[in-house]
């Protein structure tokens, strides 16, 4: 079957054998995106997080056939090395990465928080990221990066 997806403002068709296939595999293998990552396949760690219509979802368990007309945004949809999104720039400025495997989820989950609450408290940031796991333990910098974005000039 053919599934039509809108990903990072582009409309693409993906051939899918199984409508239950999680969105993650379409993004990574059919669309060659690298932002969303496989971490657990169980919606436990957050490495696969993308936005559908602005909501953070775990693409490793989200059936591709359930996306429908939802607009999918991945890490690549926020910005690039040449033109990083200010939130991505805040992560660069805070050097808020060790291995970086989880960082997609941190940025996408934080973005969803910041979109609804532009000036979260430290406790609100930690609560919003409570189900995103980082094994290198970069937590302190990740919190600082989100705060840096929230406190940037003009925000």
């Amino acid at each position, binding site marked *: 079957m053919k599934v039509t997806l809108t990903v990072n403002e582009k409309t693409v068709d993906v051939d899918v054998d199984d409508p239950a296939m999680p969105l993650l595999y379409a993004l990574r293998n059919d669309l060659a995106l*690298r932002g969303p990552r496989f971490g657990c396949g169980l919606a436990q760690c957050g490495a696969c997080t993308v936005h559908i219509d602005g909501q953070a979802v775990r693409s490793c368990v989200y059936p591709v056939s359930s996306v429908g007309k939802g607009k999918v945004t991945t*890490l690549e949809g926020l910005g690039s090395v040449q033109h990083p999104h200010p939130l*991505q720039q805040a992560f660069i400025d805070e050097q808020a990465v060790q291995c970086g495997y989880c960082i997609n989820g941190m940025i996408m989950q934080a973005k969803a928080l910041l979109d609804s609450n532009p000036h979260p408290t430290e406790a609100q940031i930690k609560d919003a990221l409570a189900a995103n796991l980082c094994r290198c333990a970069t937590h302190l910098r990740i919190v600082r990066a989100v705060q840096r974005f929230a406190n940037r000039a003009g925000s």
Partner: protein
Amino acid sequence: MPHPTLSRRALLKAGGSLVVAFSLGPMPAKTAMAAAAAPRSLALGEVDSFLAIGTDGTVTCYSGKVDLGTGVDTALRQIVADELTVGLDKIELITGDTLRTPDQGVTSGSLSIEVGGMQIRQACATARAALVSEAARNWKVAASELTTADGMVRAITGLRSVPYGKLVGGKHFALALDPEAPLLDPSRYRFVGRSVPRVDIPGKVTGEFSFMHDFRLPGMLHARVVRPASIGARLLGVDESSVKAIPDIVKVVRDGNFLAVVARSEWGAIKGAQQLAATWSDGSGLPDETRLWEHVRATQVIKDDVTSNVGHAEQVLPQAAAHLSATYDFAIHTHGSIGPSCAVAEFRDGTLTSWSASQATHNLRKQLAAMFTLPLDKVRAIYIEGAGCYGRNGHEDAAADAALLARAMGKPVRVQWMRADEHGWDPKGPPTLIDVQAGLDAEGNVTAWHSQFYIPQGVAGPVALVAADLADLPREMNIAPGGILNDSAIPYAFPNVLTVAHRLADTPLRPSWIRSPGRMQNTFANEAFVDELAIAAKADPFEFRTRYLHDLRGEEVLTRLRVFAKWQGRRAGAGTATGRAGASTATGRGVAYVKYELYRTYVGVVATVEVDRETGAIRVKHFAVVHDCGQIINPDGTKNQIEGNLLQTVSRTLKEQVRFDRSRVTSVDWVSYPILTFPEIPAVDIELIDRPALKPWGVGEAAAAVVPAAISNAVFDAVGVRLRSVPFLPEKVLAALKSA
């Protein structure tokens, strides 16, 4: 390869000498042509193994040490840029490719800068001296009249200069690495000692960085392994009809007890592996989890390793005025990389190429060659960065899986482990049991210290590959837990000390090294027991430690820590808990110290914790750290590593233990093996001691070693109970409070 190059042999043939071979004049075209195809040296004693300078001045650095997510790629560039006096933007770095990079050993033990980086620095120094000599000869001046800057040799006075690229002329150096080549004076460093931003971070926060997991080859198939239902189980039967309905499946591969599903699509392989009906023999070789420590204590001891022996500890102990003894244990742990292991392999024209995130591609190459009975030169292992790696996790096993399947399929195969594969089948940090006793005289001075460690036997070298075992292919079935003897001896000059490791014949699950292997467990017992002695001696734990340290750098760390942490002089445990009266929580502080492996990086830490007497929950609120790793290459990178060490080890100390039944690991996801989450993180303040004139030591592990004891000591300070069993789960805290 960046540019055509000349081999040493070609240079010798053409009349060059080893020392200044690249200073040859024009070479006969034929020789140069032949030489262009010749391989570069990979020997550790050759400059060419580490460095090439292109005609455009690009410096290519070849490193056997790889970046495991620590930022070492950036740090190595800083070292090269300074030692060669070139810009950071002139440097290309190639790492972990057995065809192109020297074997600098496993990327482990916090040695990438300390050993690997220093080999590279010395190669750079050798090259820089040779470049200066070459220019001096060309210009017929003394080398002392020349210097280097910005990728050029130039006269100290005057304007004369020549770019490195022109001097090298696209050739190899063909130069022995000179261990005495003078190093640049640290006052001339432009990059070392500064917080140069990491080169990989912009790509990692935008999805442009390519991890191992993103690597694809044309025509590549996807596979998932189906592991035995029990450890040691035999595969009795496979019903392939159980996956017939999945159109993408290409083949179910069975090789002995190795079983995998190969498909055109990744999801097809995943579904196939989930649905494949296989029958396994029973297995029940694991001990009763509830009696793990009895099992460890009852395991056959095959030898004793005495790691220190001063005086006559065993004879003196019975005469002590006060005798203390305690048993510490540290649970089995998993690595828990956020991205499960992943590898791609291809057999083509009799050659196996393996792409993986292995921390030891040269060792992996040897293991794969043995496994498939191939000559070493028919195997190439290439590193691509994966998720954070804290030791020997599943990467090498995934590489063996992929190679076995690539051979079976005749096409490139990608294997990605699922979460349960990683938690269930990565090699584990072995259980560690420690008995320690000490004596005090009437004045509270330590008279003797005697510790006994019950830890698995071990050999140096790689961990056996799961696929080779399951498929019964040639392999060495070594127990290789890493250097777990380290820091079993202590940094304190007590008059009588005996530290002995009883090496056990076996351990329940395949062991390997996990960040600060042994050092973390051993330092837990040592530093918590030192705290017990300080309390018994009615001494302040800082003062008690420094009394026996006799180590100026160690004393400086503790002296500075005492100030930095605003330590209040206290008799530990003597009613100093600071919790509000009537509240269920109590706050306490504890100190711990390590001189890593007793010869390098010094760390002192003060932990502040809050203990809830009603729930038994421990919250680590704060760490104050003083850290001396000698010359600091990148201060912010160093802090990043220290923060990671501390918080990862808080997770290990408070929450983590591998769960198992008699046949398998049962903690196979993040619910059954929970780790630290954002609401639980402590604040951290770090004071770095930089010693630019000294050699740099590792920073990837040392700060992990002090965490469990610092927390244990702080908990005692808060509520007066001693936690001697990691993890410090709430039920253990409650039980300790109840029996106190």
